[in-house]
């Protein structure tokens, strides 16, 4: 019996030694060793704070973030939902991603999250600083799921992460079932303008193209690939039925329907004639790029593109999501803010 206790206590000590640190494989494929109880996180990728919020709505562990994350946060409902996040430091980096390492060290982070697909120049100095660095890349549904898993492990909330991933996958298979029935002729031609009148649009191999296909729309820019600038003339040739104005600019649908842009003429475009220009909503993060709220974006798109197939009220769906995943009750003003019904 005595021996048995010794074995048990030995193994407990052994296990606690192993588990006092943990290892996470980041998107570089690198095994990053972290201390067990992460308390201070610094993020550089713009969407990271909003995704961390999905895993841990308290937001008290985020001590530093990119200034652009902060401006996105302050423009969204997240500032009210996670007031602690709005106090994070942003002084260690400016418009690029090159960090002032000494300034960063002052924050005493337990872990730093940095882009791993934007050059070694921005990640190597962090590696040398001795802080554990998790390299991240972004842009696909798969990347999104990887982020959620990594954040789940980081904060020891794997279950929460899996819950969101499961929700996403269920929605995707639901959508695939619905949209496979839609004939090509019934798919509206849509144009997405992430930067509004700068005429950037997103072609094939983008996340946006993925969700337009998923929600039964015909992305007119599918003939080009990636993010490109197109001409007004090309847009007239495409003549889209619906236009989505992205969240990277403050321009609103009125600006297009009133034809206010110098050197552009929107009056002949079908979407403008039919008053079908929409502003992409802004939840805890912009709905344009991938985030935990992407399924809401898909449902919003379906309700515009195929209202007959959308047997729900998108605002109710959104409120339910916020209650279920963030335990937060949205009021009417906040809902109006998310759907950007008024100009800021």
């Amino acid at each position, binding site marked *: 019996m005595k021996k048995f206790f010794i074995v048990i206590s030995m193994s407990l000590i052994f296990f606690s030694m192993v588990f006092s640190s943990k290892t996470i494989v980041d998107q570089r494929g690198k095994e990053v060793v972290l201390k067990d109880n992460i308390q201070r996180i610094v993020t550089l990728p*713009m969407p990271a704070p909003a995704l961390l919020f999905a895993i841990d709505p308290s937001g008290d562990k985020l001590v530093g973030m990119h*200034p*652009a994350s902060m*401006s*996105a946060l302050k423009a969204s409902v997240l500032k009210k939902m996670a007031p602690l996040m709005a106090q994070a430091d942003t002084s260690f980096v*400016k*418009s*690029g991603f090159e960090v002032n390492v000494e300034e960063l060290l002052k924050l005493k982070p337990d872990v730093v999250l940095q882009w791993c697909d934007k050059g070694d120049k921005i990640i190597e100095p962090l590696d040398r600083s001795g802080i554990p660095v998790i390299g991240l890349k972004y842009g696909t549904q798969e990347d999104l799921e990887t982020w959620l898993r990594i954040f789940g492990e980081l904060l020891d909330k794997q279950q929460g992460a899996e819950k969101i991933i499961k929700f996403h996958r269920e929605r995707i298979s639901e959508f695939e079932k619905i949209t496979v029935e839609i004939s090509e002729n019934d798919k509206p031609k849509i144009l997405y303008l992430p*930067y509004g009148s*700068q*005429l*950037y649009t997103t*072609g094939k191999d983008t996340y946006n193209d993925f969700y337009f296909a998923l929600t039964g729309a015909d992305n007119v*820019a599918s*003939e*080009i690939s990636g993010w*490109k*600038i*197109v*001409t*007004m*003339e*090309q847009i*007239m*040739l495409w003549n889209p039925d619906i236009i989505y104005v992205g969240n*990277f*600019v*403050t321009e609103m649908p009125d600006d297009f329907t009133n034809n206010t842009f*110098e*050197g*552009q*003429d929107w*009056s*002949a475009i079908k979407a403008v004639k039919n008053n079908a220009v929409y502003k992409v909503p802004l939840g805890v993060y912009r709905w344009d790029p991938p985030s935990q709220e992407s399924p809401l974006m898909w449902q919003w798109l379906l309700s515009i593109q195929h209202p007959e197939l959308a047997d729900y009220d998108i605002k109710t769906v959104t409120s339910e999501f916020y209650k279920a995943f963030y335990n937060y009750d949205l009021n009417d003003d906040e809902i109006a803010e998310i759907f950007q019904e008024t100009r800021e």
Partner: protein
Amino acid sequence: MQLLKRKSIIFAVLILVPIVIFFVSLGIGRYTIPLDRSCKILFSQIFDIQQTWEDVEKTVIINLRLPRILLALLIGAGLSVSGASFQGMFRNPLVSPHILGVSSGAGFGGVIAMILFKNSSLVFISAFCFGLLSILIAFFFSKTKRKITTLSLVLSGVIVSAFFTSLISLVKFVADPVDELPSIVFWLMGSFSGASYEKVKLIAIPMIGCITILFLLRWRINILSLGEDDVKALGLNPNTLRWLVILPVTVIVSLSVSVSGMIGWVGLAIPHICRMIVGNDHRILIPCSISVGAVYMMLMDDLARSLTAAEIPLGVLTALIGIIIFGFLLKRTRGGGLFES
């Protein structure tokens, strides 16, 4: 008589080719409109022609293509003649109209206004004013003992250019990477995509005025290219003459950066290409540069807006194709430089 005939043929070609290219450009674009119909639409603005086209086609031709082509024509002619004048005046074939730092100054004026005001007419005004300011700074640095040499002028141009280029980098650094940076980068890259009649109206008169001044000075640029002593021998003041060239060039470069960002290589390559065709005599080189510059810019913009569904950055095309033509001509003419004879 023979010479006179040859000269009038050259002038006829220099006037006719841009006009032909102008109409051809009107028929080129992503939205397919046959050439004859596009010309009809254009003339319907002046004459009473029965409508045989759709309203969309008229919008494309009149509201989108025409201002773009006019802008390309003016700026192509302006930058090219500026380059030719500067190369003659500085007696240096490596000089481009950007040498005195005007374009960097105007570029900085533009980006700072984009961040502070976000208003396109203020961007134009600020870019133009900073272009003029940069020439004043260059003038201040180059002035030693009440005398300005071309060397000190070029050196202070390098200083001004470097100064404003680093200020542009600074603005890029403090700009918001999501909201502001993409529009700054796009604007600096150079493009006619924002062309409108307002812009054409703003720049047309000063642009044509400055091009005319340089055209009238073509004989004097010939003398400047011979050297200071020859200018003095002819009883002209080299300093006054230089500023008579520098000022219109400054206005042209500032205007072009203000409306279309920085478009490189036109002012350097086109005068060279012209020199290989018509020789070193500025009396014919200057008009040739005006004409070829306009044609070149119109053609490059045709490619930029119609080659693929996505718009190709204009600066990439002007440089790439300019260099290929330049290299080809260099090989054929065995390097016909500026002062070979």
